[in-house]
């Protein structure tokens, strides 16, 4: 039998995915900034 309601899993999983989105966007912006910096220095 399950010891925890499904909703707990769903909430935890959604929280992780939201954090993943935030981290992903931060990495995208950081690497894009590096590309822009290189282009500016060339």
């Amino acid at each position: 039998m399950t010891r925890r309601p499904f909703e707990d899993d769903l909430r935890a999983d959604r929280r992780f995915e939201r954090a993943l989105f935030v981290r992903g966007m931060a990495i995208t912006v950081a690497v894009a900034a590096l590309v822009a910096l290189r282009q500016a220095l060339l």
Partner: protein
Amino acid sequence: MPLLTGCYQCLLASLHWFRRPVPAAEEDTLPRIAVVVPAWNEGAVVGRTIDTLVALEYPADRLRVYVVDDASTDDTPAVVRERAERHPGRVFHLRREQGGEGKAHTINHGLRQVRREGSYEAVLVIDADVIFTERSLLRMARHLADDRVGAVSGYIKEGSRPANYLNRFVTYEYVNAQAGARRAHNVLGAQLCLPGGAELIRREALDAIGGEIDTSTLAEDTVTTLRLQLEGWKVVYEPHAIVWAEEPRDVDGLWRQRLRWARGNIQVTWRFRGIWLRRDRAGRLGSVSFALIWFSVLLMPILMLLASASLVALFVWDREFSVDVFRGLWAINVFTYLYVTLSSFSFDPAAARRSWVQGFAFPGLISLAIIAYALWPPIVDDGVAGLLEDAGVTTQGALRDTVLLFAYVWLSASMLAAWLVRRLERVRGLARLAPALVYVVGYGPLLCAIAAAAWGKQIGRTEMVWEKTEKTGAIGDVA
């Protein structure tokens, strides 16, 4: 192109949050599941697998475990019979007296028996060594509340403990290829492969493809995944359903396992040749995105050879132009490497803590040195040349040309070097050098070398052999 495709997948994976939430299934609507475990000489691991299956957080009356013993000659039958006696009505021992035909045939034997024996609404096909975490099956099964979903897979993680250097490379690889790429495929609306180690298939969906697993290729899981989707079923990946698996601990074991997978992928490409770039026939699987993702991996060795040959040809034709192209290409390499590596760490921070060194060393130390040279040429042109001149060696520009040509050739020579590492690992007394050499040559080039070998075997029509990966049961961190 493969690196840009990698970046594309990382970007898509981070958008996974925007997918429609999973239906919140009620406990009494969970499907009755028949677990089919193919086992050939798995006495060391199958007992623990059964124990974890019966202890899963899943209603006991809705889960039956069928171990298909493929004429094992070790203690597998005794181990399974003992578990069957301990869990009557929940664990069943199905014995094939004549085995050796391979995993897909063994699974099909189990599927036929299961169909005869009882009522079930979904079948879970797993490997004999995988360890499901407590709520992983619940997380997978809840997707079946959506009537359109035909199959679900979980996140298979490398679980060998103690983990050696190669296990840690595989850990990082799986973070990238599963936690990352399969999330991206969810966002694109289809999956290229649900791994056979943890594949939950709805009964009607399995019936729609004939009720059995493909036996004509070495990639039966990919064939099942593609056929289900071509029949109109949705196939999804559940990244929070964690399943631990034991992976090879040496280069030779990895080579044999991956050669089978790579040959299977080549066979699948040919068999499903009518779906690529054909949205009218294959829906989302026929999109440009999936063609790019599939072929950038499949053709990687050929692309590396072409890149090397083109740069060397350019060098002969116009040396300075070749330098510009080289710097441009490797600049793209730097940024894609950074983006893919950092993104992969974010997909699974726990795995990243264990394998961050292998993540950074994935392309190999030589490739990293080339990246550094491409970014900052004075390292060699002034630094190394200066040191040599201080030592009385006059290079007169020859050093620069030598380094340039080496960098151009390394793209493809790294595959040859990886092949040599495998040979060296078999030589008595030199095997201990293999780990250091994998770091130097790179795990990525090692995978490319295996893909190249698969092409060679497939073109040469070498006989297909199902080489089983040896498992010892050394899986830990099950949490």
